[in-house]
């Protein structure tokens, strides 16, 4: 996995990172950030649940950038590092993750790794803990997390080293409304 950018920054004075590279395609960038802001701004599914899925995706896809970023909205909903530490193989036995979060993690693993993991029991658990609207939002989120992590990795945008970084949760820009 390369940590040498495979594409240059399109923003003068900025190094290559996801935003500055995506700027090569302004229409895609604008549309993506509007979508991502709307997704995180929706409270149909709690930010903590979305972040649990994002953290699992980061670990399975080996996205170091994703793995070290935390969104503040989920932190405010109690997703501390002691919980994040349990979002690893064997999460099924965690005492810190809720049953809902375990069902979400199984769905996440099924989507990003092996659809057979969403067997009858796992499917029933997901549908017991989440409404259809929440599952739709979760599915959108995992789709985006997976796609963006792979795009980021394959464009060589993985950092060589990165501290854990808390960022404001993506939001819909007023001007975009």
């Amino acid at each position, binding site marked *: 996995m390369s940590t040498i950018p495979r594409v240059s920054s399109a923003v003068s004075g900025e190094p290559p990172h996801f935003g500055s590279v995506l700027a090569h395609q302004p229409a895609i960038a604008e549309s993506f950030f509007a979508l991502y802001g*709307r997704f995180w701004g929706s409270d149909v599914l709690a930010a903590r649940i979305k972040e649990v899925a994002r953290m699992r995706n980061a670990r399975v896809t080996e996205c170091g950038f994703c793995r070290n970023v935390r969104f503040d909205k989920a932190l405010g909903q109690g997703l501390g590092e002691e919980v994040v530490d349990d979002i690893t193989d064997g999460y099924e036995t965690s005492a810190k993750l809720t049953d809902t979060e375990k069902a979400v993690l199984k769905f996440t693993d099924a989507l990003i790794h092996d659809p057979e993991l969403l067997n009858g029991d796992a499917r029933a658990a997901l549908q017991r803990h989440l409404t259809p609207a929440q599952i739709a939002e979760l599915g959108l989120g*995992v789709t985006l997390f997976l796609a963006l992590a*792979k795009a980021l990795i394959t464009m060589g945008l993985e950092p060589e080293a990165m501290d854990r970084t808390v960022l404001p949760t993506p939001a819909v820009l007023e001007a975009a409304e």
Partner: protein
Amino acid sequence: MSAVCAALAADPVLASHYADFRGKTEAALDPALVALVRQAVAAVHGMEPAPEESDLDEGTRTVLAYARRMPFEHTAITDAEAAAVVADLGEAGFVAFSVLAALADAECRAEQVGLAELAGG
């Protein structure tokens, strides 16, 4: 319609945003290449036959070979493989293609878990 779009049927605002993102990504590339990339990725997942490549130029075959790596080998793609795609599509094209191939893979996976049915679509 992708499984994600179908799943979002009850949320027209999010569905519209997602369709726009998907559409803008596809619009940045040649429509024939978009179709080939989607088909090549779906073939890796066993969801479609592999595209017929005998009449394609070398650059397009290089791009499709790269796209086929996205579903299960994304961390193994080399700098040389990426450089070959950049040489064919240019930097802006490579960015759009990277998003497209990764999104195509994720959408196949969403379909395989039955996302639309789970969401009541």
